[in-house]
């Protein structure tokens, strides 16, 4: 067991290693992680708005944000590609904490307690809970689907290399993946609003010890007794 457990460290802003207790708050996300997250988020919003504009006539007016219909068609694939690349970066940063365990499945099975704010009944959660991990994998699947199908009907560059039946299937797959991803992100955004303190975690990087204790107790223990496996935490 490490001996530096629980030591309160104060460092200059911008030098906050993850999983440390600083000035009575716990560092949940480093500046790099936060910035990557918000780049992905911004790209997602732009990709979703431009994509929805071409999905349903009711929201075709979203295309005004992109300079009209043709510009929406031109920009959407580039925004999407950018989002995928940024997400790959984000995924590399957080993937080691997103392995599903038996406790995570139990957590998911107890979704009624989750939604009812009865966290005391749930298994102890590490850095991420079952829902967050599930979201992570759903996002990966959707983005792979979107990338592959999107390239197939990307005009004028790639669509010419594919047959019409393939393009039809790609367009359908693209719509389905986008739908699932948008629903997943709506859930993600709501969870951030609902669980107070989460937005601060992703904007300032900090959470209170009580927050960590309540929502991610196993992670809290790791952080406070210095057994956190995170690089930089030793």
């Amino acid at each position, binding site marked *: *067991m490490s001996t530096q*457990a629980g030591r309160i460290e104060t460092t200059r802003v911008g030098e906050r290693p993850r999983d440390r207790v600083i000035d009575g708050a716990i560092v949940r996300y480093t500046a790099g992680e936060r910035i990557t997250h918000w780049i992905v988020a911004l790209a997602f919003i732009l990709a979703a708005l431009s994509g929805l504009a071409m999905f349903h006539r009711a929201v075709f007016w979203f295309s005004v944000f992109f300079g009209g*219909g*043709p510009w929406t068609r031109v920009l959407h694939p580039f925004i999407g590609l950018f989002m995928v690349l940024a997400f790959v970066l984000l995924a590399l940063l957080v993937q080691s904490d997103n392995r599903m365990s038996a406790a995570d499945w139990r957590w998911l099975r107890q979704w009624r307690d989750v939604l009812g704010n009865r966290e005391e009944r749930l298994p102890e959660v590490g850095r991420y809970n079952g829902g967050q991990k599930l979201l992570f994998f759903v996002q990966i699947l959707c983005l792979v689907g979107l990338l592959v199908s999107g390239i197939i009907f990307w005009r004028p560059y790639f669509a010419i290399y594919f047959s019409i039946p393939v393009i039809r299937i790609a367009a*359908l797959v693209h*719509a389905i993946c986008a739908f699932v991803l948008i629903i997943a992100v709506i859930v993600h955004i709501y969870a951030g609003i609902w669980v107070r303190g989460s937005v601060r975690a992703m904007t300032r990087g900090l959470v209170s010890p*009580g927050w960590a204790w309540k929502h991610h107790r196993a992670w809290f223990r790791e952080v*406070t007794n210095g057994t956190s496996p995170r690089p930089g935490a030793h």
Partner: protein
Amino acid sequence: MPLQSLDIVRRSATTQPPPGVRAAASPSVAKLIDTSKCIGCKACQVACMEWNDLRDGIGTNVGVYDNPPDLTDQSWTVMRFSEYENPSGNLEWLIRKDGCMHCQDPGCLKACPAPGAIVQYANGIVDFQEENCIGCGYCIAGCPFNIPRISRRDHKAYKCTLCSDRVAVGLEPACIKACPTGALVFGTKEDMIQHAAERVQDLKSRGFEQAALYDPQGVEGTHVMYVLHHGDQPELYSDLPKDPRISPTVRLWKGIAKPIGLALMGFAALTGFLHYVRVGPNETTERDEEAAAEARKRTEEQTKRPAPPETRPPGPGKQS
């Protein structure tokens, strides 16, 4: 766009009906292409170029008479030649003038996401309005006949207009004007069906038992129809589809998936809001902070204490 004077009855990506109190007097029109009379002279292709100011680039000879080898944004009609050896061992040269069929139920219009980029007039003509086109190519996926082409120059979709500009002022399409054999005729759809019936009868009397009119009902009929000597085998004519219909994939993607998908997204957001109203935010309370502080103190003490064995109270069965 002055929709009312153009007698537009359908408009892509538009949920509300176009102005329609003026019951359009224009009857449903049709072009009839009689493959049994066509000699493949391509006068219609030339007339199309002339009237529409289209000039396709000089291509390369690919070893067949088809020239250019495929429809392009500059070639809205192309004669397709196929050599068919009939059961009695004779060669038949089946020539088909390819181009937009002007479906009564147009797959392109269904698939198009840009409001008003594709319209259908009361007379049945399906027309692209390039000023509204965004160049996505969904119309290509929607079309059961593989007709629309996107220009590399302006990234807009183009295809045969059935000379909607000429028809609107009472003229027949340019191709019809140029046809030297009368293989192309134009008129009301009713008249064309009648004319086709006579042609089919004539062909049958000449030994083409299977001669038939091609007016596929899978797309609710077309405003460009064929008289085929081998009406039972339209595929012989350079893969003219036997039973064209809007692909089920496109129907799913552009039909039910669109409204349901959008509704579910809205529903998800609404569910979140209602959950918030019902259950409220999940807040960290003072108690949690205290519990966390307590837990931290405990760990700190545990780890700080050197825990030498002699300070331990001796007791039976006590193990560490």
